[in-house]
């Protein structure tokens, strides 16, 4: 099994992640007849015996034309794939158990369209697309994210049977990309440990949404409803209105405060659940992991940092 795998890696020139853009050179596009193509060839042989037996000159002509068609198909299929350029596109982090979407950008640098391109990750579903002349398209390849951490897409199979289904041209690429997989949030976790860890939920300094208390520079995570449009018109930069409110509470999500019986993954899973809850309730939260602490904070960026810390814990 190991030998077969390494033979395949040698045969198909797979030497690990490749730098973008990956261009499918002639040497790495392979062509072989499909099952339909083999049936086609077998039919031709059968027809040829018939033509010889009955001395059908036109039969010879027909069979030879079809044989020529088979050869031409070989080239057309090859051409449909060769010189395609692939570069990695966006990859959004996902939670374990969800489908990761590996975005791939396909560039067609040729003056002719390419049709019926099929892309697939090992273990993923096939995505088909057409590509107009000198166009670029984005394909997202789904792959089930089973475990937290970095998920590499591995080998991408690009293949096409265009134009006649008789021949399959394919190529393998390994784009250099990875997807961050967060731990799977625990399905039925205990409620947020507000009561236990909640430190003084007083009104000082906390940010809420009731009373306007000033302006600060805009952050992408801020709600558009809070953009100070009048100030924007004046200052030419985006500013966010800040409000003082009483509802902002703080919560520490502490690894060590979890019950002793839980294993690492269960702990991470529960912390993830709490993190999501805290974020969606607009709390200020901090994260304490063995050997790492993330200070109290709020906003999308803080949320992502915490999730990333959970995802990569111990890896």
């Amino acid at each position, binding site marked *: 099994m190991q030998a077969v795998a390494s033979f395949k890696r040698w045969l198909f020139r797979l030497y690990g992640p490749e730098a973008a853009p990956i261009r499918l050179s002639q040497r790495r596009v392979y062509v072989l007849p499909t099952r339909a193509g083999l049936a086609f060839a077998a039919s031709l042989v059968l027809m040829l015996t018939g033509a*010889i037996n009955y001395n059908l000159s036109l039969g010879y002509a027909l069979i030879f034309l079809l*044989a020529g068609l088979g050869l031409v198909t070989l080239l057309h299929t090859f051409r449909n794939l060769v*010189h395609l350029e692939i570069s990695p596109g966006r990859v959004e982090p996902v939670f374990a158990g969800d489908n990761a979407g590996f975005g791939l950008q396909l560039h067609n640098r040729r003056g002719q369209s390419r049709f019926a391109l099929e892309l697939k990750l090992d273990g993923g579903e096939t995505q088909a697309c057409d590509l107009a002349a000198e166009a670029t398209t984005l394909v997202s390849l789904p792959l089930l994210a089973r475990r937290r951490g970095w998920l590499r897409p591995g080998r991408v199979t690009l293949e096409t049977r265009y134009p*006649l289904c008789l021949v399959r041209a394919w190529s393998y690429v390994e784009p250099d990309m990875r997807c961050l997989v967060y731990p799977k949030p625990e399905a039925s976790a205990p409620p947020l440990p507000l009561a236990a860890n909640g430190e003084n939920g007083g009104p000082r300094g906390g940010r809420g949404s009731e009373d306007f208390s000033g302006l600060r520079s805009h952050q992408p995570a801020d709600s558009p409803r809070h953009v100070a449009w009048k100030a924007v018109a004046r200052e030419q930069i985006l500013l966010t209105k800040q409000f003082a409110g009483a509802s902002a509470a703080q919560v520490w999500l502490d690894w060590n405060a979890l019950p002793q019986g839980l294993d690492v993954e269960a702990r991470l899973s529960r912390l993830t659940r709490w993190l999501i809850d805290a974020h969606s309730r607009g709390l200020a939260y901090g994260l304490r992991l063995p050997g790492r602490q993330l200070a109290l904070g709020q906003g999308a960026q803080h949320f992502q940092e915490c999730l990333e810390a959970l995802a990569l814990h111990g890896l």
Partner: protein
Amino acid sequence: MASKPAPPLTRTQELWLLACAVLTLVPAIQPAPPWLAAALILALTWRAWLWWRRATLPPRWLLNLLVVAGSVGVFLTYRHLFGKDPGIALLILFLALKLLEMRRPRDGLAVIFLCYFLLLTHFLNAQGMEVAGLALAALVVITSALASLAHAGSGVLAQLRLAVLMLAQALPFMLVLFLLFPRVQGPLWGMPVDAYSGMTGLSESMSPGDISRLIQSGEIAFRVRFEGQIPPQPSLYWRGPVLGNFDGRSWRASLAREKVGLPDTATSQPVGYEITLEPHNKTWLFALEIPASLPAGASLSREYLIQARAPVRSRLRYAMQSSPGAGHDPGESAVSLRRYLSLPPNNPRTQALAQQWRREATDPEAVIRRMLEHFRQESFFYTLTPPLLGENSIDEFLFGTRRGFCEHYASAFTFALRAAGIPARVVTGYQGGQRNPVDGYLIVRQSDAHAWAEAWLEGRGWVRVDPTAAIAPSRIEAGLASAMPASEALPFMVRADFSWLRQLRFRWEAVGNAWNQWVLGYDPQRQREVLSRLGMREPDWQAMAAAMATLCGLLLLALTAWALRKRIRLDPTQRAWNRLSRKLGRIGLARRPWEGPADYARRVAQARPELAQSIQAIAGLYVDLRYGKLNGDAPSQRLRGLVSGLDIAVSK
């Protein structure tokens, strides 16, 4: 492979597949047995209706039932399931039923492969140019259907265009393979008995009306290419079956098939020619009288009929030599001569008249002269539509109707000769022929079918006597048309009027002949001929295979070059802009991929202040051309001028 099931066929795909089936099945309707033809039309109509109404296909059990019923029907029709005709019938059946369970692309592929097979079987019946044209049209549609199966998304026109393009690219491969694929003379195994039927031509017997029926056909019997001049029309007697047995109404060929050597024809100059014989499913080969050579594998019967080893079932080409002036071998045994005197006891008036003439004449030749004189002087008519004759056909003809065609005259004449004690027989064959001015071939049609008599004269052997020449000499000298009264309805091809139509037909037939000679007649022998003329010294199969592989490889290489050609054609504006970057790259100021025109110009201007003005102008113009309202050739040309006019001092 993804494990999800294949999507159902789209309506366009279904329509393409239906079109394939119709195009390949319609030519199969006529030769199929009537019940199958009816079932086929029904199935096609049903399927088209289902498509139209978007109705669901019939259940599988019904189709299984139909397969079984159809197969039983085929078996009952032919009494077996193997061989040509039952095979075709089964193919038709399967294709028609496959259409009714066509759901997924897999079924579509099955339909397409069945269509290919059916297309091949059409050639069993006919291989004319029109058949080839129809097959090519069907092939375009089938290939389009295949393209639609591979990519349902593209439009019908795009699929059609792709099919035509791919077939056009396949054409050179076809030519190479056709020319060089080492040909094998079939059959590879024994032919089923039903392979050939329904061919027209002369037969081993002749009854009144047989030949006049045959000449209604404008079909070509054979074509002749003479090495030199075509001999004069009256000497063009193409010898066919010799009929020696008479039962009072029909003449039949004798069953004895004794072989003899070639006659001594040293006295006269032989004529060389090559005959391309259309298949007639009989063993005899036609040749000018008297044959001076024999085609390979053929033999000569005592009656000077050339016999092939097997019935002629495909177009046959053979070289011949004949000596039109030579006489028969004078030797003939008394036993066989007695056979040529036997008469049935009927037609008493003719017998009496002949015996009277024999008594009055001094020698047999005088009797023959007297008989011909009789035909010439009495009011005999040469006609294609003679009245029907009864039991004593010859009496009725000679003393009653007196209207007949060559078969009547030859029959009556031979009968009378025998009654007069002169051994005689009827010879059938063709007389004359038409020279095609386009390619110089002599075309002999079924309408040139003829019958004449041969009489045995002591010391001279068999002598040809053609009574038709006495009644209608122009038939022999100028062909049938001139011998017929104007009121007779003649077969189209022998009529003298419509000369332009005939010219057209000559042209068409010359093309047809070229087709026959070079496409259909491209057999192992002709292949060797052609290849050695093309310069191949030893065209054996190894050499052919090597040449074939080489040429196909070269073609594939050329096609690969076409496929991989780079056609990234940037517009002139973009090219000029890229050129600027390359030019500035020499001083380390190439544009960075993410840099916009304004940023780039700013950076260059900062690095090289002396270029600031021109670089700003170029960038401004480029921005206007690319993103502004400016377009057209003139500003783009100005941009190119500015870029090439940019003078960069490299050393600084």
